[in-house]
């Protein structure tokens, strides 16, 4: 490290960097973070690329090329994309299904972007800074960005959009726990201030595309909830909607004034498919260039086939086998641990997901999260220990039902668990419901929280989509007050660690908290998470530079066709 670099770093630390940035630098220099983790954290705090490079040199790490290698394709052409049809609305605040968020995310964009490596990057916001306790976040809005109707993006558009997402009672954005409508304000034309209800060290992730409802709309449209589609789905994205036929097809054309540079493609032709099987057939038959998402089984024909490119992007998406900790045959933690120990996880992953995923450790802390402490010991199959735990609990002839719904291969997953359980003498019956029954009050009109099957059955199997940080999983699935807490897990020690994690901005503190939470979850095992799911899709081999995002968004700004 040269003297000049040290001087620049000292200047930065003394004048610009706040307590959080300085702690981050200490973690880097002290070896707490590797290069990738530092970049992820630095981007979360809004450090510029230049500053990141400087600090990496300061720590003796080379600042390697940032961009993914670009493979040449031709300029021009139209890509044909297959997206699964959706039953719900395209209005941002109501977005819910993979197909709708994939399509809405083409013309629409977000303040930040969480990449598949867990790094939060600038998008419509160029930088952000927290205050000392991460309760106030200040975002700088990118200048010179034009909406598709020619209007210039300003802070007022961001404020109006965000207020819609927390004001509308039927909003699906899930941002209401974080800030009120009055908590997001504009300061001048290009600064937005978020005053949060409680400290959130990872807030920039929560306004990225992982909160897929948080599309930035023009203020005039955002002021009238439910008018975005009628207004032409006006956004800032690399392609604008030219025509849309409800649930049939759409044509998008290039946005020549896109802030990220002129996209190579002339346009996009979207066809909505009623299921993934017709998408597979259309891709194989040459009627499509790119599929939105496929299951691992559907992706098989495209693997090792020179006419196609197969993608499998590791993500934090996972399935939770939630077991009631407060009543019924699974209330004894020894029984739950026994069931978890019966599973051969590598075999389970190979069997159900054909290897498209990563082993889980019965916690939501995916190895790709920066805040995950990787020193936590991985649980492995141990049938003898499982049997002894059952004997100790007096549960040697255990019988219960596992309830799930008819989504993708949930049935296969349940059947696989049933087979493992049988090896230690547990008899699992499988109940597969329709989604409308699984997720609704039973009977209709009854109290939702206490009757809906997915939150109240003895054991349930539910899939959770990918996130850039584990916050949503921790707060909603595991904390005592969580509204998705299907295992009814109530542990004051866990809640305390969770609150510590949520408020922590430094990596070391976050890892200490997640390690403590992992220990509690492995001991109590309210949930079995045996694997995390890779996002699988395929394209024609003519498609260049496509990188799957992991949450159904289809990013085509840099894509070209051979």
């Amino acid at each position, binding site marked *: 490290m040269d003297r000049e670099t040290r001087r620049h770093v000292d200047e930065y630390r003394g004048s610009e960097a706040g307590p959080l940035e300085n702690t981050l630098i200490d973690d880097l220099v002290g070896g707490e973070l590797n290069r990738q983790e530092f970049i992820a954290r630095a981007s979360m705090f809004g450090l510029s690329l230049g500053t990141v490079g400087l600090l990496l040199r300061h720590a003796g790490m080379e600042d390697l090329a940032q961009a993914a290698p670009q493979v040449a394709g031709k300029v021009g052409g139209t890509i044909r994309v297959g997206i699964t049809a959706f039953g719900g609305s395209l209005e941002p605040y109501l977005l819910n299904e993979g197909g709708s968020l994939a399509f809405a995310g083409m013309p629409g964009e977000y303040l930040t972007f969480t990449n598949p490596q867990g790094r939060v990057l600038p998008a419509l916001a160029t930088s952000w800074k927290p205050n000392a306790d991460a309760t106030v976040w200040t975002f700088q809005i990118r200048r010179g960005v034009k909406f598709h109707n020619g209007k210039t993006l300003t802070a007022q558009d961001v404020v109006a959009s965000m207020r819609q997402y927390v004001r509308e009672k039927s909003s*699906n954005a899930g941002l209401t726990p974080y800030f009120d409508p009055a908590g997001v304000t504009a300061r001048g034309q290009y600064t937005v201030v978020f005053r949060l209800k409680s400290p959130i060290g990872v807030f920039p992730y929560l306004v990225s595309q992982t909160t897929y409802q948080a599309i930035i709309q023009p203020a005039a449209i955002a002021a009238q909830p439910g008018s975005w589609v009628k207004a032409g789905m006006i956004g800032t994205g690399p392609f604008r909607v030219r025509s849309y036929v409800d649930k*049939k097809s759409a044509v998008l054309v290039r946005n020549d004034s896109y802030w990220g540079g002129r996209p190579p493609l002339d346009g996009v032709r979207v066809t909505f498919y009623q299921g993934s099987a017709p998408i597979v057939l259309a891709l194989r*038959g040459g009627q499509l260039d790119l599929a939105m998402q496929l299951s691992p089984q559907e992706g098989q024909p495209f693997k090792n086939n020179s006419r196609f490119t197969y993608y499998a992007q590791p993500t934090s998406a996972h399935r939770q086998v939630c077991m009631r900790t407060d009543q019924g045959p699974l209330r004894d933690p020894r029984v739950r641990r026994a069931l978890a120990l019966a599973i051969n996880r590598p075999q389970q992953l190979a069997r159900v997901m054909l290897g498209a995923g990563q082993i889980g450790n019965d916690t939501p802390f995916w190895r790709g999260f920066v805040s995950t402490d990787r020193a936590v010991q991985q649980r492995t199959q141990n049938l003898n220990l499982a049997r002894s735990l059952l004997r100790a609990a007096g549960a040697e002839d255990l019988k219960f039902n596992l309830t799930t719904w008819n989504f993708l291969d949930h049935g296969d997953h349940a059947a696989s668990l049933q087979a493992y359980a049988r090896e230690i003498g547990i008899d699992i019956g499988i109940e597969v419901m329709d989604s409308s029954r699984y997720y609704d009050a039973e009977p209709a009109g009854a109290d939702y929280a206490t009757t809906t099957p997915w939150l109240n059955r003895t054991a349930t199997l539910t899939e959770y989509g990918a996130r850039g940080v584990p916050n949503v999983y921790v707060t909603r699935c595991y904390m005592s007050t969580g509204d998705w807490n299907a295992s009814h897990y109530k542990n004051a020690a866990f809640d305390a660690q969770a609150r510590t994690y949520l408020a922590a901005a430094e990596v070391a503190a976050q890892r200490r908290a997640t390690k403590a939470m992992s220990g509690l979850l492995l001991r109590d095992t309210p949930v079995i998470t045996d694997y995390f799911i890779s996002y699988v899709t395929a394209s024609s081999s003519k498609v260049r530079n496509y990188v799957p995002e992991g949450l159904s968004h289809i990013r085509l700004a840099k894509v070209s066709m051979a």
Partner: protein
Amino acid sequence: MARFLLKRIGLGLVTLFLLSIIVFSVAMILPGNVGRSVLGGFATQESVDALNEELGANRPMVVQYLDWAGGAIQGDLGTSLTSQVPAWDLLGPALSNSFKLAFVAFILCVPLSILGGVISGLRYGRATDRSITIAGISFSAMPDFVTGIFLILVFGIWLGWLPVTAQWDDGASIPTQLQHLLLPALTLTIVLFGYIARITRAGMIEALDSDYARTAYLKGLPSDVVVRRHVLRNALLPTIAVVAVQIGYLFGGLVAVEFLFNYRGIGALILDAAKAKDLPLLTSGVLVIGTVYLVVTLIADILYAVLNPRIRLGAAE
């Protein structure tokens, strides 16, 4: 004839009215609600309740039905709760799509099936008859999605002769649309061939065995004249009734084929509406299909009367 038509139309309207009540009532009993369908399983109950309130989906069933029926009588089929567009904006294009597919399937399937049945009947008991019968039964036994996948693999993927989906670009020419419709229409032809051919065959056998046919032969008339002038018009009477019912199926019952070929027909639309509990769209869609059934069976009855003087004369008496 005028009295007959008026009576049928009157009965048809009563049928449609009862149908709408049945569909509405049954759909209300199904689990789920439109708010949950739109917002998804993970939405809070507060959000779901708020959306149901916005859409009016939490009103009593009778109120919702009367609201819809009042509009329907005036030609307004209501607004789709999930898409928030007039129901006819969705039903119209879907009906048009279903009509196109039904038409192509009809002109492929019906002449071929009738021809198969006629040949089979004329060669009753011989190898030709057995081949056509066995082929027909085998095709009918295969589920339509299996037949469809097989055709897609052979003609769409391996040979690359035809598109694998039945969806053409906007503004496509008629030949292009026909090219896209050929595989699903062929699927339906294979599925329906056996049934129609067997009914025709049975009619042919019965007609050929009748006294009037025997008399015609004994009079010295050539075989083709006997078949054309005397046998066919009697043999085809049951076939007309069967074809009329199948036309109704071709409009509203093609959910699996529409799914496989990604074709937005009215069957798929109604299925989606049922799953989402989008009652205005569902009821309006069922009403449209019901109307198609009634019109088609009325046409079949008229054709029946035209072909069979006994019915005309009996009605006159």
